[in-house]
């Protein structure tokens, strides 16, 4: 699997009523202080129905408070290839998405008003060429993804549901009974101490 355009969405547990202007302010504060990736701009799309409400545009990846599927969450959208094999890229994408969630949970402007749940995840391969929405892609992706999910859920069970609509991108809905926090999950990935 050569795909590298990976999207991961973690849904908000708390903070669904946070105003778009607030997310806008928060993302703007990220741009000057982020050094490990290039963040460029913040776009407000709160006027569209069920779309990317507030979008932080980066070079390597975009981050958005997203409502595309009618539920609000943090969507991590990897655009440039990261180093390593597909499993490495998968793990890196999950870690980046988790770090962004953690950053929002601890953001001083939000003052603890936002938190994320990890028991329900949207996973998308945003590349119809390298990852067509097919059973073959599912077969190719599943083993590597399951390894990452085993770590995310610390061995607890999870279900993977494939949305096979041919007009859509390859997308999986992942559900687990595991209710681990973002901070704890990051520790499992050795991403924070």
């Amino acid at each position, binding site marked *: 699997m050569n795909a590298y355009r990976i999207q991961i969405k973690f849904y908000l547990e708390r903070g669904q009523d946070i105003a778009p202007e607030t997310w*806008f*302010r928060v993302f703007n504060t990220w741009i000057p202080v982020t050094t490990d990736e290039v963040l460029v*701009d913040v776009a*407000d799309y709160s*006027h569209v129905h069920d779309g*990317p409400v507030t979008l932080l545009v980066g070079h390597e990846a975009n981050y958005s408070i997203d409502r595309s599927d009618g539920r609000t969450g943090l969507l991590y959208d990897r655009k440039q290839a990261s180093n390593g094999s597909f499993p490495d890229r998968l793990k890196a994408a999950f870690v980046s998405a988790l770090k962004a969630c953690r950053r929002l949970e601890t953001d001083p402007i939000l003052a603890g008003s936002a938190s994320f749940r990890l028991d329900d995840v949207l996973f998308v391969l945003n590349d119809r*060429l390298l990852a067509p929405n097919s059973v073959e892609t599912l077969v190719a992706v599943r083993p590597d993804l399951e390894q990452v999910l085993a770590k995310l859920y610390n061995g607890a069970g999870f279900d993977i549901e494939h949305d096979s609509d041919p007009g859509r991108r390859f997308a999986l809905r992942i559900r687990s009974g595991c209710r681990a926090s973002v901070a704890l999950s990051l520790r499992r990935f050795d991403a924070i101490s």
Partner: protein
Amino acid sequence: MSESTTWKEVLADRIPDELGREVDIFATQIELRKQDKIDDTVFAETRLRRGVYGQRYDNGKRFDGSNTQVLEFPSGDLVKGPDTVWDAPGMQRIKIPFGGLTADQLDVLAELAEEYSDCILHVTTRQDVQLHYVHIDDTPDLMYRLASVGITTREACGNTVRNVTACPLSGVCRTETFDVTPYARACSKFLLGHNDAQDFGRKFKIAFSGCEHEACGLANMHDIGAIAVTRSVNGAEKRGFRFYVGGGLGAVPHQAKLFEDFLPEEELLPVSQAISRVFARLGEKRNRARARLKFLIARLGLEEFKRLVTEERKVMPDDPEWTAYLSDLHAYDEKPLKIAQPLNGAVVAGGFEEWTRTNVYRQRQDGYAVVTVTLPLGDLTSDQTRALAELSRRFVNDTIRATVEQNIVLRWVSEADLPELYNALVEIGLNEPGAGTIADVTACPGTDTCKLGIASSRGLAAELRWRLAEKGVEMDAAVEGLRIKISGCFNSCGQHHVADLGFYGISRKVSGYTVPHFQVVLGGQWTGNAASFGLAMGAVPSKRIPDVVARISESYIEGREEEESFQDYIRRIGKVQVKRMLDDLTEVPPYEIDSSFYMDWGDSRVFTTGDMGKGECAGEVVPLVQFELSSCEREAFEAQVQLDNGHYESAYKQAYSAMVHAAKALVKSQFLDVPEDPDTIVSEFRTRIVDTGLLHDNPVTRGKFANYLFHAHRRNVDAYSEDLAHRFIEETQLFIEAAYACYGRMNVVSS
């Protein structure tokens, strides 16, 4: 799994050869730029001519609220134009001639927005679609995928003929003279990539309208505006156009001038071509601010301009394309999907009546309606786009158009289907009423993404939309039909000059701070094809513009005389009274009292104009010869690639083509109509460039490089060997270098 394939390969059987070749060329030019084998200015104009546009912060700098920070893109020094960083995300403009779209095209646009942009499609005031935050390395794939559904981005930007626009009701309008769609389509196709439209000093815009009195075509604000008219000739009805030239908005708006009261349909394309030639030859090239056609006409006078065009028209070689389309004007006629049926008192959902009142237009054809899908700020998501494609398959037959008011219309909806269609639009959040009302605010991208933007036109538009939509049905009928249009700067992309209430972004210094303002422009006329322009009334802080709208509206409701129009009302009360009315709104409270005035709508940073950059609407002026020589270099590069792949015959032939084209480019500087055939090109090259001594200034090399071409032209190759192809590519490179040097000398002589 298709891991080793490319979009080009996957879509090979669906991409028309011509469109595929265009994208191949652009992909090669990208490679050449990365290898520093193509000048950054030439590349900038090259990419602009493919619709690949710069965006705010593409100089690698951004104001973060207190400091200007450097954005450290990984591409380092690589640029895609002067002071334009390679990695900086950019805008892709996609030309949609006359706004006409199919369901399949909507599907592909939705996919592209998802995979290369931000899941948002933006409909522009010229019926284009724009995607933002696109990486230049993704653009060839994006273009192959567009080509697979018949869309080209060619000449979407740059100094070219831009998207040809037309009234979105053409063909179904109750008051049109005739359907202008086939003419707009033919004009767009004819001038796309036309040799005579490649050497402009600025962009060139064309619009068609089916009638004189409505707004839809906005013919009066275009370089060419063609309004459908008929005339009786020997008892038969003859089609033609009231033909306007030299209109334009921008910082200095010009009303178009009547070029011909009745231009017969068969003269539409040749006269447009003749105008292109005169504009290319005599239009300003150095002073970008005065390079549009309107300035040329102002300088020459309309009569002299007409004389020059008429003379040019006489000497142009005949082209069968001028009239070929006229024999089959109905080839693309639309057909409804469903039979016409009246609404018949069906049970309808809440909101339907109001939506029908503002968003449904009864067609000329009984039982059918045009439905306007209102797009807030011209935006819709990928999911909405895909859903709209499905709705169009369910209710109409690929009869979709983007409008200059940044909406989308579905035509040929059977009236009986309206309730069901409305319910389906509710499901996807596209059921907003108010199309064509004061709440349907139009705005250019402004500071959101445009490098020239001064103030946030979209931020203001969003605020006004929200406030005016709140009033909804309670709004006084007198103001409901007014138009609000907003530009982020004086360049008028938001078309503020032709709005009842227009605004354009400016800034003012207040106690050491830069404060976002908008200039208030009142009384422009949208109808009558943008019949008149508004008057500037003064600058008001951005945050007080909603108060301006409220106050002016109330004043009009209370003060108008009977059926007095808004334009007449503003004219009657005069600028002095308007200024007095707005006087207290011009004040800016100190920062310490209310800091919100020092931030723009939809932005949390302290306002600055430091993020502005050099705009790309003006393109880069690259002389035609230089542009064509650059193209020859690209051909020579492709020949090298063929050689590397062991295709010696292709390599040789490609190199020969490059050499002939380089010769042609030089000849063209003296003889615009040089034909395509190599015999004539070589002969003309010998006479005009070699025998006159122009090619060589060095006695040692005298004749040497020209002989490479002459030998190759005479040569009959029996076997194409690696050695032959290799040597010939070397000679081609030297020939192109000599051509560049020659062109440089010609330039010195001529200047």
